[in-house]
């Protein structure tokens, strides 16, 4: 008998033929008639092929194939990975012409979707048993999926926390997080000591907390960071020509917390109790009264204050043009060209990194280390 597909095609052929006749008799011009006759012929040809192939319906010729053929296997379930891959591909293309971060996210999505899609496709062909295939997929993918998802989750939590912390002021921050901490403690107690608490309630509280955190993080990120007070550094002190002050400045706060290198320094410079400044150059025997520094090279020295008062070490490189707020030189105005350590307590050490681009023989004034407030503390610097 005719199959469903054949019936449709035969019917379409008949309709096209009738339409061609009606069109030819009622309308002027032959183009429509030719088109409809062509359609009738094409549909007739397809109907003939379909009749011969019987809709490619194996079951109509071989009933056993319904249960034994490859096509009889369960169809794969719906998958989100093609959509994710398409989204990734789109982001990659958009990222190429917009922002690198879009490209990176797109690439990650594309690679992840490709890997997941491949694993899923492979697992669906593992056997005829859908549950077994799902189990196979889980065994392969979960060891990777779980850590990655956990890392993403932790990352979101940390990022949200950090945005909230940076948004809140220095005074309100501890209060807010104190309250949140107390709340978590209370909820923890309730969960621990309540016998009748349902799992659904715990899940709901957890989801609400997570959503609250993420929402707060997003809101804080949009709100921006609070205004952070820039802590003055010795670099800023040097730029203002203020290194030679014997007084403590804001740059000297927390000086004792500064980390100093202890090995392979160019020199260790010591301010002795008698007010002399002497150096020990690595590899050179004994204390010396001149430090040799390689030209145009990041140089590290350590200052050791063995005097009885807090002092800072200053590298005096002469003078330099003063700059205005826009960084342009102020004509005719010079300020000291210096680098300096933080104020160093007696017995303490400080670290100083600097680079001198011009040989000392070409310097208008000799390079030297000095200690403000101690006139006898002078140490020549030679730059070959």
């Amino acid at each position, binding site marked *: 008998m005719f199959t469903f597909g054949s019936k449709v095609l035969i019917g379409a052929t008949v309709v096209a033929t009738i339409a061609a006749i009606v069109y030819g008799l009622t309308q002027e011009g032959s183009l429509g008639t030719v088109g409809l006759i062509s359609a009738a012929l094409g549909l007739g040809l397809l109907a003939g092929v379909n009749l011969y192939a019987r809709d490619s319906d194996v079951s109509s010729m071989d009933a056993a194939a319904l249960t034994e053929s490859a096509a009889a296997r369960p169809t794969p379930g719906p998958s989100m990975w093609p959509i994710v891959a398409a989204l990734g591909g789109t982001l990659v293309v958009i990222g190429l012409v917009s922002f690198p971060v879009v490209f990176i996210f797109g690439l990650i999505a594309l690679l992840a979707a490709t890997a997941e899609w491949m694993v899923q496709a492979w697992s669906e062909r593992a056997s005829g048993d859908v549950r077994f295939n799902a189990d196979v997929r889980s065994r392969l993918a979960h060891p990777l999926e779980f850590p990655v998802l956990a890392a993403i989750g932790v990352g979101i939590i940390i990022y949200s926390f950090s945005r909230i912390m940076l948004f809140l002021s220095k005074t309100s921050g501890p209060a807010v997080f104190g309250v949140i901490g107390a709340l978590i403690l209370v909820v923890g107690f309730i969960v621990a000591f309540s016998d009748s608490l349902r799992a659904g309630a715990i899940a709901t509280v957890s989801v609400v907390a997570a959503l609250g955190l993420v929402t707060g993080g997003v809101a804080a990120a949009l709100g921006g960071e609070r205004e952070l007070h820039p802590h003055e550094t010795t670099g800023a002190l040097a730029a203002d020509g203020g290194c030679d002050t014997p007084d403590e400045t804001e740059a000297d706060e927390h000086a004792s917390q500064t980390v100093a290198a202890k*090995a*392979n320094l*160019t020199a260790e410079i010591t301010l002795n109790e008698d007010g002399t400044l002497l150096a020990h150059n690595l590899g*050179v025997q004994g204390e010396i009264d001149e430090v040799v520094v*390689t030209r145009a*090279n*990041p140089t590290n020295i350590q200052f050791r204050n063995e005097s009885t008062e807090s002092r800072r070490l200053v590298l005096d490189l002469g003078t330099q043009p003063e700059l205005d707020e826009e960084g342009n030189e102020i004509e005719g105005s010079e300020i000291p060209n210096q680098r300096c350590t933080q104020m160093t307590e007696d017995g303490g050490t400080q670290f100083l*990194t600097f680079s001198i681009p*011009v040989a000392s023989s070409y310097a208008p004034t000799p390079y030297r280390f000095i200690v403000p407030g101690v006139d006898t503390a002078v140490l020549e610097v030679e730059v070959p």
Partner: protein
Amino acid sequence: MTRQDAVDQTGTSDTRTVSVRRMPGPSRVRRRVTAVVGVSGAVLLASACAKDAPQDTWQPAGENAQKIQDLQWPVFVIAGVVMLIVFAAVGYAVIRFKDRGQPIPEQTHGKPALEIALTILPALILIGVAIPTVGTLMALSKTSDTECYVNVTGQQWWWEVDYPTQEGCGGIDTPIVTSGQMVIPIGTNVLVRGTSRDVIHSWWIPRLNGKRDMVPGRVQTVRLEADQPGMYSGQCTEFCGLSHANMRMEVIALNAADFETWKANQLAPYEAPERDTLAATGEATFIAQCSRCHQVDGLLDADGNPVIAQPQDYVWSEAAPNLTNLMTRNTFAGAMFDLLTSVCMDRVWDASPEEFGAVYLEGVTLDCLNQVDLREWLRNAPEKKPMYTDPEELGPTDGKTRGMPYLALSEDQIDQVIAYLLERK
């Protein structure tokens, strides 16, 4: 596939017209592998007999390298004996107990006496090796007997050498700055204080001592001592970028009198070229084109002011070789090229220890100048040595180059600069 199989598949019986490609059998493959391995091994072994090997650690030329030699020989012997014993034991086990279908022997587990012995024996061997090793390391780290200090600074891709003022080295009252070649007096404990301006480099003159990494922001020391006058070559041994393989250096050892001559020459006042000469024009060209980066001590501009190079404005690592006495050296461009022609350079390399100082101190003469490489270098340096100088690729370095850029010098300007540089000795 056999030959007959191939004939059958072609459907013809005329074997003369059939091309048969036979796959080599297992025995043939084994023979080929054996031949390749054998020939490679023989070539490798023969390379150890090379005489012209200026960077051979097995030819120590100074006290420090000799200490390393005295350590590595016994260690190699001990390691060799251990290797032979292990190989012999494994070979014996493989051949003697090869699977010939015999029944599996009785399986035993644990033999305390043997296990203890095989633990103690290697420990004793390692202790035996460790004691002289530690002693040698301490001896090579010693600085208390230093007689001369030299600073070395690595930079992509050349070495700067400077001699600070000191009482050592026979006394130096004005710093000397040079590059590529370090000149030292023989029989003197020289302490190299090294660092780097950009990335980690490694200083190694194999015939004088072991290698030492030169790290930005840190100072590393290495002792050098040469027994006889001569030229000892080395090269950077820490991958440092594009032209790492072209970052070479030499240590020139001179006897005390020759070293004093060299020193005096380095500190001699600048002599301007005679007026109206090609060199005088070259001086002006040098000031206009080269002195932005290269320092020539004593050079004055038209107004009589010192010309001070400002490489920090043009070079990423903020320095370029000092060319004050360029023609007293015999290499340039990070010691990649010889300033001398091959004939003259061979004369330096082949000079006897007695003659070496005189030959080296001749410096570069017009007859001996390697004009080919120097001209090509001045014509387009980046073509001679891979460097980062393309203006379109200097964004990450704020437009500053790493290496000498293309200067678009005309042939006339090159002639002038060469004439000027030839007098820098």
